[in-house]
């Protein structure tokens, strides 16, 4: 809107005009088609049944011609459906729920911190301030090796954590879906910072005795957005292999990566990252069309690695004493915002309804040709999606995205509650959030979900799912026993 005029947006009448405009543009094809159809049917009815019979007889069609044309039509239809890309369905997924004995409350965390870093009271203070503002709750979990004072991260302990998280998630998934392990054709495991030889995917193959011609892939180092990268890989693989099941396991193993030094920027991950994992079953079999929960519509990936600042903002390095940790830079939020803008530019045309795209185009043309002072139109993504799953990277990330995308607090509730109950579980957090939405009974058939995740590098990946069937409560999942307590109000600062 030109700056000179007063702001009409709050006026009620304009809201109805906007609604009418949206309805008109979104359904323009229907509006054109219906009058045409009505016109044709009126004409046919006016002709009368005798006229129609006469026209039919004059065509002089015999049996051979009918057979040939129907054969041709069937052949064309088959070829057309054969050449369409196969749909990828999410049959079901399961999230790992840590036992209550692994719980780390604020008091436990601060006490351990004081004992581990006894020579660096400033660092202890720093950790306390971070924890107060983090948005985490009292029930997040850390693996057993980290509960020791000082922590004892051996390779055996790391393997133990991996086995517990991955195997529980897969066991629960097998139980939910009822498929046999022999049926899995593709296996993708992603874990950023723990990569033993043989790989975690080989560990899964060994435990469940999967087939010897399984296609297994082990991705690592790809950060918190690795879950969606695995989805992209699974989708490409399922296009090339008909009639297959793909098992994707997303997790992050905390044990070997706990920072033991006292450099402040590197203590941040210790406060935020917690234990978690998810196992997801994807399929392109037509018989899963009815029992699948979601259908994958789009996956869009954006990589900002070519920019120096973006590349260095999440960086693993050694501190002055040689201890390895992950350094998070101060302009993480700004970079996240930039990456998000790039991602939105690509995903916008794919998902926004025609009305939003038209408005965006008009404002863009207007800015370029008429007056560069026009405010850029931020498309309203609430039109395109019913649910949003924003990676629970930290409170600041969720706040920033809520502001950028103009979302209400109900839209980001799933992300905030997941951060509160489970902490930042890296690549699997999106699945805990989806589970929350289902547990609250908000997922109906036809709903569209947008999953956004950021990761080191700097990457911003998003996936769009469409709900295939209404999901009834109560659901079995990580929120089963506590969903009635949520949502909780998370204060800005929790006084410790």
């Amino acid at each position, binding site marked *: 809107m030109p700056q000179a005029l007063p702001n009409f947006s709050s006026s009620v009448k304009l809201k109805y005009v906007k609604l009418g405009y949206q309805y008109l543009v979104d359904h323009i094809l229907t509006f054109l088609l219906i009058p045409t159809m009505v016109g044709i049917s009126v004409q046919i009815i006016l002709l009368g049944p005798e006229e129609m019979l006469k026209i039919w007889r004059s065509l002089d069609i015999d049996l051979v011609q009918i057979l040939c044309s129907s054969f041709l*039509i069937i052949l064309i239809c088959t070829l057309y459906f054969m050449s369409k890309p196969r749909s990828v369905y999410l049959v079901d997924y399961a999230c790992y729920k840590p036992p209550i004995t692994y719980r780390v409350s604020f008091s436990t965390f601060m006490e351990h911190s004081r004992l581990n870093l006894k020579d660096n009271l400033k660092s202890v203070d720093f950790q306390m301030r971070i924890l107060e503002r983090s948005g985490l709750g009292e029930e997040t979990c850390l693996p057993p090796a980290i509960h020791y004072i000082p922590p004892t991260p051996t390779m055996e302990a790391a393997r133990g954590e991996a086995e517990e998280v991955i195997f529980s998630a897969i066991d629960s998934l097998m139980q939910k879906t009822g498929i046999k392990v022999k049926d899995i054709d593709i296996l993708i495991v992603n874990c950023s910072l723990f990569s033993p030889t043989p790989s975690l995917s080989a560990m899964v193959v060994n435990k469940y005795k999967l087939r010897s011609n399984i296609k297994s892939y082990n991705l690592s180092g*790809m950060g918190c957005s690795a879950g969606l990268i695995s989805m992209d890989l699974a989708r490409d693989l399922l296009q090339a292999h008909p009639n297959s099941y793909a098992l994707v396991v997303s997790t992050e193993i905390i044990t070997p990566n706990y920072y033991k030094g006292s450099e402040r920027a590197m203590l941040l991950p210790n406060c935020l990252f917690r234990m978690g994992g998810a196992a997801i079953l994807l399929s392109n079999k037509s018989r899963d069309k009815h029992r699948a929960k979601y259908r994958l519509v789009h996956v869009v990936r954006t990589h900002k*690695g*070519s920019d120096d600042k973006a590349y260095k903002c999440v960086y693993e390095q050694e501190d002055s004493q040689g201890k390895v940790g992950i350094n998070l830079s101060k302009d993480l939020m700004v970079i996240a915002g930039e990456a998000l803008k790039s991602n939105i530019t690509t995903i916008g045309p794919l998902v926004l309804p025609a009305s939003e795209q038209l408005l965006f185009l008009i404002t863009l043309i207007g800015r370029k040709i008429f007056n560069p002072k026009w405010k850029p139109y931020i498309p309203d993504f609430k039109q395109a999606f019913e649910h949003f799953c924003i990676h629970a990277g930290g409170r600041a990330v969720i706040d920033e995205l809520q502001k950028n995308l103009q979302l209400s607090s109900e839209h980001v509730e799933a992300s905030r509650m997941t951060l509160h109950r489970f902490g930042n579980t890296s690549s699997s957090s999106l699945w805990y959030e989806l589970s929350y939405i289902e547990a609250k009974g908000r997922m109906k058939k036809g709903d569209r979900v947008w999953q956004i995740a950021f990761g080191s590098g700097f990457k911003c990946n998003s996936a769009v799912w469409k709900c295939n069937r209404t999901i009834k409560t109560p659901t079995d999942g990580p929120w089963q026993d506590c969903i009635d307590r949520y949502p909780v109000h998370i204060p800005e600062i929790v006084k410790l």
Partner: protein
Amino acid sequence: MFSYCFPLLCLFYNLWKIFDRRRHQNCYILDYECYKPSDDKKLSTRFCGEVIRRNKQLGLNEYKFLLKAIVSSGIGEDTYGPRMVLEGREMSPTLEDAIIEMDDFFLDTIDKLFNKTGISPSEIDVLVVNISMLAIVPSLSSRIIHHYKMREDIKVYNLTGMGCSASPIAINIVQNIFKTQRNVQALIVTSESLSLGWYTGKDRSMILTNCLFRSGGCAILLTNKVALKEKAMFKLKCLVRTHHGAKDESYDCCKQKEDDQGYEGVHLGKNLPKAATRAFVDNLKEIAPKILPVRELLRFTLLTLIRKMTQKYNKTGAAARPVINFKTGIDHFCLHTGGKAVIDAVAQNLNLSEYDIEPARMTLHRFGNTSASSIWYVLAYMQAKKRLKKGNKVFMISFGAGFKCNSCLWEVMRDLDQDGNVWKEFINSYPPKTIDNPFFEKYGWINEEDPDTFHIPDDYVIP
């Protein structure tokens, strides 16, 4: 009559669409470049002896074992090691060392590859990096994207932990992406990080990896663009992966773990050869029908049936087992240079001559076991020796932890005669008259020493 025009046109259009899609799904190798580290990183046997002596944890038995392993490994005097070993810091490697090791490789090889092919980094659509033993944040693939300023919408995958057989796995990912998208150019970067995996304890099964693995790497440029078919070197015919992780003995035979004193290393079990053979046989069983001509398959089936029937009626005197002749469908063999024993075993199983396994032996001698990239060095040797002619079939096979055996078959698209690859400077001196280690006699004295009184004086100089 005319009423059939429109449906017929639709039919032909759909058929053409399907055929055209198949045409665009082929996987071509445009070019590849192997890494040749700088000469100051050469590890001679003498230097290896020095490194072993430096490790105060080792006693006489370990010395004997290690020197014997090095001397009879088939590895020559010119292989390359990581910088931190040459600088004497192998007991305490840092993350910085690992990153420098990778940077040396990336900046050298990937630059050369881009220059050779004339393709700019912004044209790359897919990047797959596989480096088994190093997983850092941001990933090494992000490091490459950052350095070469690649596009934002690049599809990138960082594989780790997949061992020495990771090359065909990376090719598998690219092959699948080629099936779904058109006009894609992909870059595969494969190498191994030795710095942080260096074992500093004294368990024999774990020190072996220190002796056998060497620095090396390869960058490969692939595409499915039909327009670049004329410039392509190889076309992928088929790829088969076998995973024996379900069997416990196969899974445990090559495992990274801590020893009794808490030092991390890769443990190579005693039943490694057996697990490897089993996986190898399974893989061959699956790939043989796809690559051998029908005539050979029929011959083998008939001979097996005849043998079974004669055995049924004549219990005594078993006839010789019929052996499949792989050379009817394959012209060149690229074997993973896991070690002298591995090459010998594979040669025996496939009935290969000295000429066939010469590339693998020479690669082991000149570059050592460079893990996943070794098969590309073997391929480069064949190319440098001008053995690859148009229409030839090249068979690549590699083994890895897990236990996996992956193989693939390439068809040579044009006569590969021009020089200019990693073997260029010394190809004429290969094969050498002898590949026995020159220190074999020098270290013979060690067999006479008494373990209780053995003590290497600090000023001992290796002859």
